[in-house]
C-alpha cells in the first residue's frame, strides 16, 4: 500500500478533532499489519470506492467512544454507549473519512465514501483487507483511537 495515501487520513484527524472540541491531538505509533485486527470494543467501518478502493476502520475502546461522544456533545456526561453516543461516533467517522476524501482529491485521487457501520461488542475481529494494511494510533486528549487503513 502506498504510504502517501496515509497522510490524508492523519491530516483529517488533525483538522476535524479540534473542531469537535479536542485540545491536544498527537500521532502515536504507525505499523504495517496483516490479517484481522482485534477490535477494542467499538469499530466504525467506512468503505471507499472510485479511483482507489478500500476500507478504513476506526477502532476504540468503549470508554474512549464515550469520552469522544461526550466531548462532541459539549461535555454532556455519557454514562453508557447509547444511541445518541453511537450516532456521534458514527458521524465523527463519517466526517473524518469525508475530510480524508477531500484531501485525497487534492492529490488528484477521486474517492467516494460509503455510510459508516458501527460494530459494538467484546472480543471480535475486523478484517479490512486480504493484504497488508496500515495501523495508525492517534491520540486525542489522552485517548487512543486506532485508524486501520487498507487502500489499493
Amino acid at each position: 500500500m502506498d504510504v502517501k495515501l496515509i497522510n490524508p487520513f492523519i491530516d483529517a484527524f488533525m483538522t476535524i478533532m479540534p473542531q469537535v472540541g479536542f485540545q491536544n491531538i498527537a500521532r502515536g505509533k504507525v505499523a504495517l499489519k496483516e490479517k484481522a485486527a482485534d477490535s477494542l470494543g467499538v469499530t466504525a467501518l467506512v468503505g471507499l470506492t472510485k479511483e482507489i478502493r478500500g476500507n478504513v476502520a476506526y477502532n476504540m475502546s468503549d470508554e474512549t467512544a464515550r469520552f469522544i461522544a461526550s466531548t462532541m456533545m459539549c461535555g454532556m456526561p455519557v454514562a453508557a454507549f447509547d444511541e445518541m453516543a453511537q450516532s456521534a461516533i458514527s458521524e465523527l467517522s463519517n466526517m473524518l473519512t469525508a475530510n480524508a476524501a477531500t484531501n485525497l482529491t487534492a492529490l488528484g485521487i477521486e474517492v467516494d465514501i460509503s455510510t459508516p457501520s458501527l460494530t459494538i461488542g467484546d472480543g471480535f475481529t475486523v478484517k479490512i483487507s486480504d493484504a497488508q494494511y496500515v495501523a495508525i494510533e492517534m491520540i486525542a486528549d489522552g485517548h487512543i483511537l486506532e485508524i486501520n487503513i487498507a487502500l489499493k
Partner: protein
Amino acid sequence: MEKIRVLVVDDSRMSHAMMDGIISRTNFEICDYAKTSAEAIEKYKILSPDVVTMDMNLPDADGLECSQRILELNPHAKIVMVSAMRDANLMIQGRAIGISAFVQKPLNENELLDTLRMVCQSNEDSLKILEESYVKTFIKVLHKNLFSLAGVHSDMSYELSTEGKLEIDGIAIIIGFTGKPIGRAIVHTDIDTMNQFARAILGRSADEILSDEEANECMEETANIIAGRSVSMINDIFKDKELRITPPGIIVGKKLSIVNPKLTTFNIVASTELGDLKMNIGFAGGE
C-alpha cells in the same frame, strides 16, 4: 393529500408570523408553536409532528439541548435547526446529536421549503422505491446465486427492519455502496451455517478438513458476488445511479451489534437446508 405537520419552536412572535407566511401556502401546516424548550418537549409528546423547526436561542435552554431531549423521546425525530449564526461548530454538534438540517435566519422562503421537503421526503414513497428497485433485486440475485454457488434452493423472505441495530453471532460481511443512494449490505450468519455453506460451495464432505480461513473466505466471496451482481443489475436498469461497492470488511465474533444510525434497512432471510443466510441492506435517505 395529507399535510405535513410542523411544530415551530421559537420564542419570537415575528418569527411565528414569518414562518406562517412561508408555510401557509404549501403542503406543510404549522400544527403548533412552542416558545420555550419545556413547552416544545411537551407539545412534541402530545402532537408528534412530522418535523420540528428549532430556533437556536430559547429562554430556558438552547436549541441543541431542546433537540437532544426531543431526540431522546424519538431518535428518528426530524429537526431543522434555524439559527442566525452559521457556525461550523454548532453544525457539527447539531449533526452529532442527530439534527437533520440547518437553515439560516433571516428565513429565505425557498431555502426553508426545500430543506423541509428534503427532510420529510415522504417516507412511504421512498420506502416503496427502495423496496421495488433495490431490495427485490438483491433478493433475486441472492436466490439465484445461492443455487448456482452452493446448489441449494432457498425460501426468501424480507421485511422492513424496525430495530436500530443488527445482532450478529458468527460472521458478518459488510459491503458499502456509494452512488445514489449510499448505504451498505451486511451478509451474516452463524458459524455452523457458514461452515455448511462453505462445504457445499467447495464440494467438501463433512469428514474432510475445512479451515476457518477457508470458510470465512467462502462467505466473503459469496457476499461480494451477491452485492456486485445486484449493484450491476440496478445500474443496468437505472442509468443514473452509478452505484459502486466497496471491498468487504469482515467481522467475526459473538453477541455483537452493528448499528447504522440514520439508515433505512431491510432484513432478508434465505432459508435453506444448510441453515439461514441473512442479509441486511440499508440506504441513507434524503441526504
